[in-house]
């Protein structure tokens, strides 16, 4: 029974780690191919938070209950807290220095 439990944990953490890796790759490809600074920022920051959650959840399942899990939880919390703040700071700095986001035109009713 505990064998099945360990197998289930392994499978779950492989799934979490692989999807976290996929999000990381999506973020990288998005930062490379999207046309504008602000769109690239979307790709980088959204996938960053998602990948952080998935990858650290996957590793924590492998680490069990130990000091390493508490450290991993702390790292995850700090990354989730500082990632969006960094995006805010960067977007603000870019806007204040005159880099305008590209809009479609005068009349853009469609969202």
């Amino acid at each position, binding site marked *: 029974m505990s064998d099945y439990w360990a197998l289930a944990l392994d499978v779950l953490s492989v799934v979490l780690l692989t999807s976290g890796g996929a999000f990381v790759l999506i973020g990288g490809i998005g930062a490379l191919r999207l046309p504008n600074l602000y769109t690239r920022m979307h790709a980088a920051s959204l996938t960053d938070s998602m990948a952080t959650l998935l990858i650290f959840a996957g590793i924590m399942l492998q680490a069990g209950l130990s000091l390493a899990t508490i450290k991993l939880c702390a790292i995850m919390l*700090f990354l989730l*807290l*500082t990632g*969006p*703040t960094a995006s*805010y*700071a960067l977007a*603000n700095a870019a806007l204040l220095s005159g880099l305008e986001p590209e809009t479609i035109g005068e009349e853009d009713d469609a969202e």
Partner: protein
Amino acid sequence: MIVMFAVFLLSLLVITALAIVQTRNLFVAVMLTSIFSLLMAANFFILDAADVALTEAAVGAGVTTVIFLAALALTGERERPRRAGIIGPLVVVVSTTLVLLYATFDKPRLGDPLAPVHTHVAPWYLEKTPELIEIPNVVTAILGSFRAYDTLGEVFVVFAACIGVLFVLGAGSKAPAAIDGSERDSLGLRHHLIPQVVGRLLIPFIVLFGLYVQFHGEYGPGGGFQAGAIIATGVILYALIEGEKAALRAIPRGALLGLVAGGAMLYGLVGLAGILMGGNFLDYSVLMEDPVKGQQYGIILIEAGVGMAVCGSLLTIFHAFAAREGS
């Protein structure tokens, strides 16, 4: 597999270096330099050198980037156009590179068990550390006790660097007045709410983690250099959020200079205490009745001295640059 990771990271390093050299915008060069530091930290980590990786990440990608940006805010962004010729420097660089490459042919392979460092030096340290000092982290034992003279020299180099910067930029307690005489330059990020809230949440954790790294250096990666850099980062975060004048009120310049000089002096005094108690200079075994406890006690004291000196000098250099903004 790990070798492939290391090779991949090293080739990224070469690409970054080429990009730094060929750009003309110094802001771009500073950002690429912080990427370079992170790549070096990852490389050190892959080579299993955790203390060095921690120092490189804390100092290179953290504090150095901020100090470069503070300096760039005072000067311009564009590099001055080149006036001298290119043939002379090119010849010197190419010939030095060829000589260095020729010298690496004589080096033993990485990780070769028959290399002299692995047959004479490393086993001696690995054998003597549990016997004489009894701490798990052999790097700290070598840095703090077996090669303590070298570390004393490093602390005095940091001290000299701090004094050098103060000579060039001025330690003046009067900051130059702003152009229109207003307090514009000291607001910091106060009117941005999000960085202020998040920064205030993070500062106690950063300082606490710095103290953890300082005192945990004997059991895991850590020590005085890393801790000094991390605590300096915490104070710099406070200076960025609340403005540089608030940070100077919190920890005044006199206290910072006292930290720098005090740290270096503490190290020297521990060495002198060794002489006064009957041993050699920097011999910690005579500090207490039990030589092993004496070694551990000595290492704690000198790591504290190193941490104080590094923290004080990084903050002094930061304030020397940031206080001139607005002139």
